[in-house]
């Protein structure tokens, strides 16, 4: 099993055995976590290679010219962009299917992901903007959360997938996991309690075995976050020398 330590510029690419599925990842990246959730939930055997995203190895840029995680590799096949990776995995490993077969339902789910990606960018903007600019981002965030709340309520079940966790739940979860961690240490300008269905969902998701297996260590995450704010992301925070 390869190390969890991240690979940086100048490193050698660890050998990939024929027939093995590898995911290039980063321990605190929410986009990569989407792919890990799907891999874990569907019990797809895989190995993980973590990438130093500030100082990317040249060999990684050969595989993905955009240099982003997650990136999947198996034999000669490379897939990147998180939503595409997740869909690809769901199709190629069809047991425990996570996406609906009906084209319209598929489309509605993808539209929810698009609404959500607006939320992600507004949330990131709010976290990094000075206090006086926060009100505009905040209003956008509240609108997005209202949309998501309506979407969830319409699905008549505890999950975006209805009565069971489906792809949409995994695609959204990583950001809510982080919001819950932040909420314990900083006052958030919005409250999830205002969105009762979403609030319940954030309590149910941690019961899912894949969510548990892929969970962030809150302390390590906060240390990583602090290190990124300081301009020197510590991708290997919390790892011992032999990890």
């Amino acid at each position, binding site marked *: 099993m390869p190390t969890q330590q991240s690979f940086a510029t100048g490193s050698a690419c660890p050998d990939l055995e024929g027939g093995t599925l590898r995911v290039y990842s980063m321990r605190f990246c929410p986009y990569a976590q989407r792919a890990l959730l799907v891999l874990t939930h569907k019990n797809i055997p895989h190995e993980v290679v973590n990438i130093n995203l500030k100082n990317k190895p040249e060999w990684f840029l050969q595989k993905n*010219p*955009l240099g982003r995680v997650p990136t999947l590799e198996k034999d000669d*096949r490379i*897939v*990147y*962009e998180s*939503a*595409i990776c997740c*869909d*690809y995995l769901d*199709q*190629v490993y069809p047991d425990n299917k996570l996406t609906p077969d009906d*084209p*319209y339902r*598929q*489309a*509605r789910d*993808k*539209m929810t992901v*698009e*609404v959500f990606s*607006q939320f992600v960018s507004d949330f990131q903007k709010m976290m990094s903007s000075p206090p006086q600019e926060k009100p505009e981002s905040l209003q956008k965030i509240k*609108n997005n959360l209202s*949309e998501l709340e309506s979407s969830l309520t319409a699905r008549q079940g505890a999950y975006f997938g209805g009565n069971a966790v489906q792809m949409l739940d995994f695609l959204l979860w990583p950001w809510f996991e982080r919001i819950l961690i932040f909420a314990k240490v900083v006052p958030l300008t919005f409250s999830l309690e205002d969105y009762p269905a979403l609030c319940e969902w954030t309590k149910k998701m941690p019961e899912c075995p894949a969510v548990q297996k892929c969970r962030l260590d809150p302390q390590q995450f906060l240390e990583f976050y602090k290190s990124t704010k300081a301009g020197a992301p510590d991708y290997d925070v919390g790892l011992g020398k032999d990890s």
Partner: protein
Amino acid sequence: MSEKALGRGSQCPPLAPGTLRLYSMRFCPYAQRTRLALLHKNIEFETVNINLKQKPDWFRARNPIGLVPVLEFDDKIVYESNVCNEYLDNIYPTPKLIPTDFYRASRDKMLWETFGKVTELFYEIPKSVADGSLDKCIRRYERQLRRYESELSNRGEYFGGSSPCMVDFMIWPWFERIPVLTIIAPEAEIDPNKFPHLSSWMKLMMELPAVRETYEEPTSHVHFFSSLRAGNPDYDYGLK
């Protein structure tokens, strides 16, 4: 049906059962992606153009994000150009524009999902002329275009090989708008010596009926873009 853009205070034209409607805007590249797919697949549809600066409430009710394209059919609503086009390809699979092979489909999706790296430069290049960083911007532009040049060289005349596929239609609208860019930055011209495959591809695309039908002359694009920058977008430019 009128082509004029409908704005605040307007009534939503009634939609007959069984009719597919596209909410659009005549100069929007994202809506053009869906128009191209509809036309290439010979799907019958009607168009309602939207005043995106003064959106009607009935439009926001259909798409909370408030953008075009939006498809409406009986009680079904689909928005986001990539979602619309995938949905159309599922419901109207002749001709199929997205491969049925999962890996090939993923590679195609990666091409249009990462095309944003090119489109963002369409906004940055004009700004960089003003602030003196044009050279750097053009280098980034060419680096991103090289990904598509390289991919095209492996595939054939079109990204779909001997006939166009979804990738060709998803990226075309910006290539149509390059003449607008080159007025401010001639360096943005697609040089056939640097990009021989993309240059040939652009000529081939212009021969497709769907591309010809959605094509707007550079002067129209320039006029619209200037009116947009001036804060008063002329959505109905060119209409009698």
